């Protein structure tokens, strides 16, 4: 012990950031839920307050938050195209083997 217990406690309890993956997930979920939530009154406050909450809760600047959201969306877009391409290839393989099997059966009478 250093003799400064309160200082030791502050050092031991330094704020911890969640994983980037979790932050991504949460930001996406909050953004989606924010879009889905409609309130007739004082709607102009919503984006500002959500942003403020996120900024403060994660220690991010507003610019960083916007940047992270955009980065994640770009990444999701690229991943989506890749996922669809892989899916199509896998379906193609399934089709090829099934199709050739059908041809085999037809040829065999």
């Amino acid at each position, binding site marked *: 012990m250093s003799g400064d217990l309160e200082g030791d406690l502050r050092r031991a309890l330094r704020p911890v950031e969640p994983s980037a993956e979790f932050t*991504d*997930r949460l930001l*996406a*979920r909050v*953004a*989606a839920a924010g879009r889905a939530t409609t309130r007739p009154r004082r709607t102009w406050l919503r984006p500002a307050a959500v942003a403020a909450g996120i900024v403060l809760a994660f220690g991010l600047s507003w610019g960083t938050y916007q940047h992270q*959201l955009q980065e*994640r*969306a*770009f990444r*999701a*877009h690229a*991943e*989506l*195209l*890749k*996922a*669809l*391409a*892989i*899916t*199509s*290839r*896998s*379906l*193609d*393989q*399934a*089709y*090829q*083997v*099934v*199709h*050739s*099997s059908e041809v*085999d059966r037809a040829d065999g009478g």
Partner: protein
Amino acid sequence: MRHVFSCWRGWIAGAAYLVLLHPGASFAAELRIPDFDSLKDKASDSAIISLDENLLGMAGRYLDSSKPADAKAKSVIQGLKSIQVRSFKFDKAYPVPTAEIAALRAQLNSPLWHQAIKTHSESDHSDVDLFIGGDSNQARGLLIIVTEPREFTVVCILGAIDLAKLQDLEGHLGVPKLPVDK
């Protein structure tokens, strides 16, 4: 020699006709698709993709509807709950992750999942398994496991999958014509 599960045509065709409607509460929300960590280091190329509904929505906003490929992709992902892909390519033979595949298959031990295609090619040393989730009226999930000598792929799509739309992607993303009787 290839062994083909006989009911494949019914399932595929049925699934294509059914615009696979919104998932019901009783259908398993998510399948836990392993990351196949044991393969990552050995693979020369890998793709681990997990897109939930929110991320699909974000991605969808960056699809440009004025471009045919993007417009069709946008149409395909509408109503999807998630897309998960694990794909690995290898320079040489790799150990097939049988335990993880077994764990994945164990999650399909439910009346809501049916194996539509099961093939094994001894000449190619490849296996293709295709499962469709849902009941006889509604399909709500698609799981494909492809095992080849130099490649291993798992694709899981949950939600309102429209295989007919997926088929329309042909020529844009390399999606093949499916055996669908229109």
